[in-house]
């Protein structure tokens, strides 16, 4: 058999294989749990030359129901005291495949845009806790913060965060930014201590402040906003 005839013969065989067993032949990854019954029905989700089509997704996943009820009509559990925000309704561009893939290895085959906070309506975007309630730490700093996580955090990740500690105390080489150096109780960032370092002892501080009649020797940062003793603001005389 000539190479050309071999090519044509196997072209026909391979095409027949694809039509008969598409899941085995060309499936790029197992389908997610809820889509397994569609394994042999590529056209349930795909449109020729258009990929996975959002309108076809919406035929089962009603946009207004996402996060509220399942495709079978069963109610989804409420998250904490608040229901998870139904942001899909407000998405400007309802391109499901931009964030979701039903194939397990979709991460490796998709190069499209992923979820971006910019896709959200401003009202939803500014209410971070409506989605991130369970991720909010239980320490006093975060509990006292409002719902505007964006004041300190970016949308790419919780870290790095940009909490401005300078308003309370300015870090320097002798006073590094490691929280537990001063804040021994991780549930309350309102409490701290400057004692424990070689230069800071209650006896030493009492002796150094007695002339100024300063008796509050626990709240050092009330007067000393920096590590420089000369820069005190004189607010601890009582």
């Amino acid at each position, binding site marked *: 058999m000539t190479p050309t005839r071999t*090519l044509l013969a*196997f072209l026909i065989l391979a095409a027949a294989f694809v039509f008969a067993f598409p899941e085995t*032949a060309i499936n790029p990854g197992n389908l997610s749990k809820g889509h397994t019954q569609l394994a042999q029905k590529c056209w349930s989700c795909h449109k020729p*030359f258009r990929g996975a089509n959002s309108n076809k997704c919406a035929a089962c996943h009603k946009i207004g129901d996402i996060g509220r009820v399942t495709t079978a009509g069963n109610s989804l559990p409420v998250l904490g005291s608040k229901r998870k925000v139904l942001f899909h309704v407000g998405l400007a561009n309802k391109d499901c495949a931009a964030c979701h893939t039903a194939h397990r290895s979709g991460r490796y085959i998709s190069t499209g845009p992923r979820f971006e906070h910019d896709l959200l309506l401003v009202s939803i975007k500014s209410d971070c806790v409506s989605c991130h309630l369970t991720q909010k730490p239980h320490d006093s700093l975060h509990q006292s913060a409002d719902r505007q996580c964006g004041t300190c955090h970016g949308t790419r990740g919780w870290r790095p965060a940009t909490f401005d500690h300078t308003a309370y105390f300015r870090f320097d080489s002798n006073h590094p930014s490691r929280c537990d150096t001063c804040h021994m109780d991780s549930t309350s960032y309102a409490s701290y201590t400057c004692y424990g370092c070689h230069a800071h002892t209650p006896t030493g501080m009492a002796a150094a402040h007695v002339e100024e009649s300063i008796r509050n020797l626990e709240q050092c940062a009330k007067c000393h906003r920096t590590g420089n003793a000369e820069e005190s603001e004189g607010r601890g005389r009582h």
Partner: protein
Amino acid sequence: MPILLRKIVPFAFWYLLLIGLAIVLDLLLHRSGLFWIGRYLGICGTILLLLSFVYSLRKRKIINFGSPKELLNVHEYLSWAGVLMILVHAGWHFSAVLPWLAVLLMVVVVASGFTGKFLLREAREHLKVRRQELQDAGEVSQSDLDKRLFLDSLTVDLMENWRHVHLPLTAIFAALAMVHIVSILVLWKW
């Protein structure tokens, strides 16, 4: 030293380098989060493989430009680079049978190509020199010569058939690759 041992080393080196490099590149792309590049490497690799077939067109006189010897060199280098890219593109994913069959065949086609490049060419030359050496060493009868060179001659005879493997397997690989490409064009969103 028999041809099989003398020539198998460079053969294995280039073959294993191809496979090893593909694994390393794939790992690096995944570790650095740049795995999406693999998709485009598939396209680049396919283009290189198509370009390498200019040699086949020249050999069959479908085109008349270029020296066949130079085009054969180009065919070898472009194929090697194209196959490397396609191996990275394929990665370590076994979900779809058809593309993986294509990759498997491609690897076998490369092995048969290397047989032509490294083994057969060198083996023919080696056998010729060896025969001459034995003849120069003294009066050796034809039957004695054949007996001494039996293993080498058998190896060369077997390798002479490499083209009968290389061409049909290339055709089957091309058929599977074409169906894979068409299925992607039809089902993927571009």
